[in-house]
């Protein structure tokens, strides 16, 4: 046991001290944090608002088009041909020209620079809103506000509720569960691949450097294999925890030092309420904001409804269990070959179930409690990924226990099998063995 600890220590510290590990540990969080931060910056940087001068020959849009942070309207009655030559001097980015028409739904947007899609769609929406208002009042004498109030009251609220067998209710958000499940599954997939192949490379390194026989004369091959697998698992856990921690730290650091970039929502809300003063529809606007807040509240509620402690514990179990199950196979492959180029043929059958699981994950999120989802989350080859996908949707405890015990049994069986290949493989040099030879190794005594 002391010797396994020695091996674990060596495997862990030689890897953690490597430059590549340190660089990856720093680069990973920077990359992930920037994935979260950069879009916010880009959104803010595009913020330059466009000033549009409006010439409305019908008079129904004047002073009614809605401003927003990206676009502001001013109104004029200068003759269009004069406007075309002078709008830039006057400090505008474009002209919105709505010619006289019995149905004033045709407009032209003149500008030197190409204005963004956002500008175009905002103008369309603003015009649509006003033209509808105008005709409803003119033709049907309907007040828009009362319709809005009605719409608000008749809004359909469909809430999905999960109940367990005792009829106890839980909140549920399918989208959130899907995201959480896929995230967990994908992380496990990458972890198995990244660190499984590290195990394989470690074994090959020991073989090609010919240190293996020196080492196995002092310890059992099985101890060496397990020491390596556990050592590398700890490296993976260290890296994962550092990544989560550093990503969070970088993100928090940024949002603290530049709060103006991260408080976009409140800022927008202020603008909205300011705008409301200019519009008779402010009632409607407020109610929309309320409705939006209601949806946000629903998401927050469903986040709260998810039992994160359980998910994290189960995640850690499958994170480690899945890795251990596959790492033994990677170790066996490493022991059978002399160099990394020869591994292809043997790695493929090991990776096929993993890739299959990842492909099926999408399917499982659509039908998390179906027959296929059940079986894939029970069989150890796919269970680490598929069970993780299913967990946020809620899985009966007995299924989790069955899946976990099968993974443990699978791990023990895989280790037993891999150890038999490993102890023969590490001492064989020269030609690459065939599958048939490897099967023969299983029958060798010690």
């Amino acid at each position, binding site marked *: 046991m002391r*010797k396994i600890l*020695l*091996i674990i220590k*060596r495997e862990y510290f*030689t890897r953690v001290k490597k430059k590549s590990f340190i660089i990856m540990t720093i680069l990973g969080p920077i990359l992930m944090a920037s994935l979260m931060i950069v879009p916010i910056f880009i959104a803010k940087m595009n913020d330059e608002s466009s000033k549009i001068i409006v010439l409305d020959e019908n008079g129904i849009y004047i002073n009614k088009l809605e401003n927003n942070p990206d676009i502001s309207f001013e109104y004029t009655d200068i003759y269009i041909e004069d406007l075309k030559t002078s709008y830039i001097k006057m400090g505008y980015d474009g002209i919105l020209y709505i010619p006289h028409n019995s149905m004033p739904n045709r407009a032209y947007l003149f500008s030197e620079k190409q204005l963004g899609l956002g500008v175009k769609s905002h103008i369309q929406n603003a015009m649509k809103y006003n033209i509808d208002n105008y005709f409803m009042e003119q033709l049907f004498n309907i007040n828009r506000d009362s319709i809005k109030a009605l719409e608000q009251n008749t809004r359909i609220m469909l809430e999905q509720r999960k109940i367990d067998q005792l009829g106890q209710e839980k909140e549920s958000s399918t989208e959130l569960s899907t995201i959480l499940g896929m995230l967990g599954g994908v992380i496990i997939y990458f972890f198995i691949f990244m660190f499984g192949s590290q195990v394989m490379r470690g074994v090959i*390194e*020991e073989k090609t*450097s*010919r*240190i*293996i*026989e*020196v*080492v*196995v*004369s*002092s*310890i059992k*091959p099985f101890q060496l294999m397990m020491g390596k697998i556990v050592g590398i698992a700890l490296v993976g856990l260290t890296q994962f925890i550092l990544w989560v921690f550093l990503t969070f730290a970088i993100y928090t650091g940024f949002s603290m030092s530049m709060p103006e970039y991260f408080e976009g929502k409140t800022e927008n809300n202020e603008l909205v309420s300011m705008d409301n003063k200019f519009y008779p529809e402010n009632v409607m606007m407020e109610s929309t904001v309320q409705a939006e807040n209601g949806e946000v509240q629903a998401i927050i509620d469903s986040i709260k409804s998810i039992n994160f402690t359980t998910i994290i514990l189960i995640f850690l179990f499958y994170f480690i269990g899945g890795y251990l199950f596959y790492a033994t196979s990677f170790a066996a492959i490493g022991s059978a070959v002399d160099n990394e180029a020869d591994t292809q043929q043997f790695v493929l059958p090991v990776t096929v179930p993993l890739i299959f699981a990842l492909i099926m994950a999408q399917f499982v999120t659509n039908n998390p409690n179906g027959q296929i989802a059940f079986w894939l989350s029970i069989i150890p080859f796919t269970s680490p990924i598929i069970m993780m996908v299913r967990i946020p949707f809620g899985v009966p405890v007995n299924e989790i226990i069955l899946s976990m015990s099968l993974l443990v049994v699978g791990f023990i069986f895989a280790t037993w099998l891999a150890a038999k290949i490993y*102890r023969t493989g590490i*001492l064989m*040099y020269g030609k690459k063995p065939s599958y048939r*030879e490897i099967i*023969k190794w299983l029958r*060798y*005594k*010690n």
Partner: protein
Amino acid sequence: MENIILKTEDIVKQYANHRALDKVSISVPQNSIYGLLGPNGAGKTSLIRIINQITAPDEGKIWFKGESLKSKHIGMIGYLPEERGLYKKMKVGEQAIYLSQLKGVPKAVAMKRLKYWFERFEIENWWNKKVEELSKGMQQKVQFIVTIIHEPEFLIFDEPFSGFDPINTEILKQEILRLKENGATIIFSTHNMSSVEELCDNIALIDNSKKILEGKVSDIKEQYKENRYSICIQDFNQDIHKLMEGIAKVEHCELSGNKTNLRVKLFENSSSNEFLHKILPHGHISFFNEILPSMNDIFISNVQDKDSIKVQ
């Protein structure tokens, strides 16, 4: 009878289509140097791996110090494998400590012993170098040190001299002899027959998975001697072939100045006294000695002559 430290009985090791060891029994006397000889692929390494408990035999028993070989004996054995190496990216000192600890030597003790050996081999300044910066010979020295760091009473060296230059080979030979003086028993396997003559007290010859010869080097030479003698006579003026008729076959005859050098093989019913008796009247004998076969000759004749193996 000498004290036997290691004894194997009818070891059989079977690989898929190949029997690596076929009822091999050897006895290694305590505090001796035991040469394990044989052509490539004969089964030496398989036997060594079994003694080191890296693999298990299919049949047969191994006794170490009178007990059946168990895992607790691993700590008493030091093994320098033929296929040997070190972790390339690790520093020499760090690695030496790691390998010593794997052998069960506590870190502080390992540090002290390593310091002694690094000084003895004049390699102290490599301590912080990475292994990949060392030449092959330098790595061999480090490996040798690590093999004996736990001061085992039983050592196995598989081709210890490969990769060493003549100077370092000599240093290594002296170290091996010193280890024996200090009470260790050493098995070593090699193709280098001159080192066998120099170092070994006993040998076993393995060919084609079977042991075909075992014993004291001196006994084996005695057993394989072929009544060959070399003699140098001054002022010899007879027809040597005629003189030797019925007594010996002249294999070599050379005249240099007034000296005649002869190599003869006596016929089975004649003795060296008889031979000398014939020669004595015809010149002044400056030397006469029996030619014992070299280990090299014994090796070659045994390995080539498969029929004689079956007689053995």
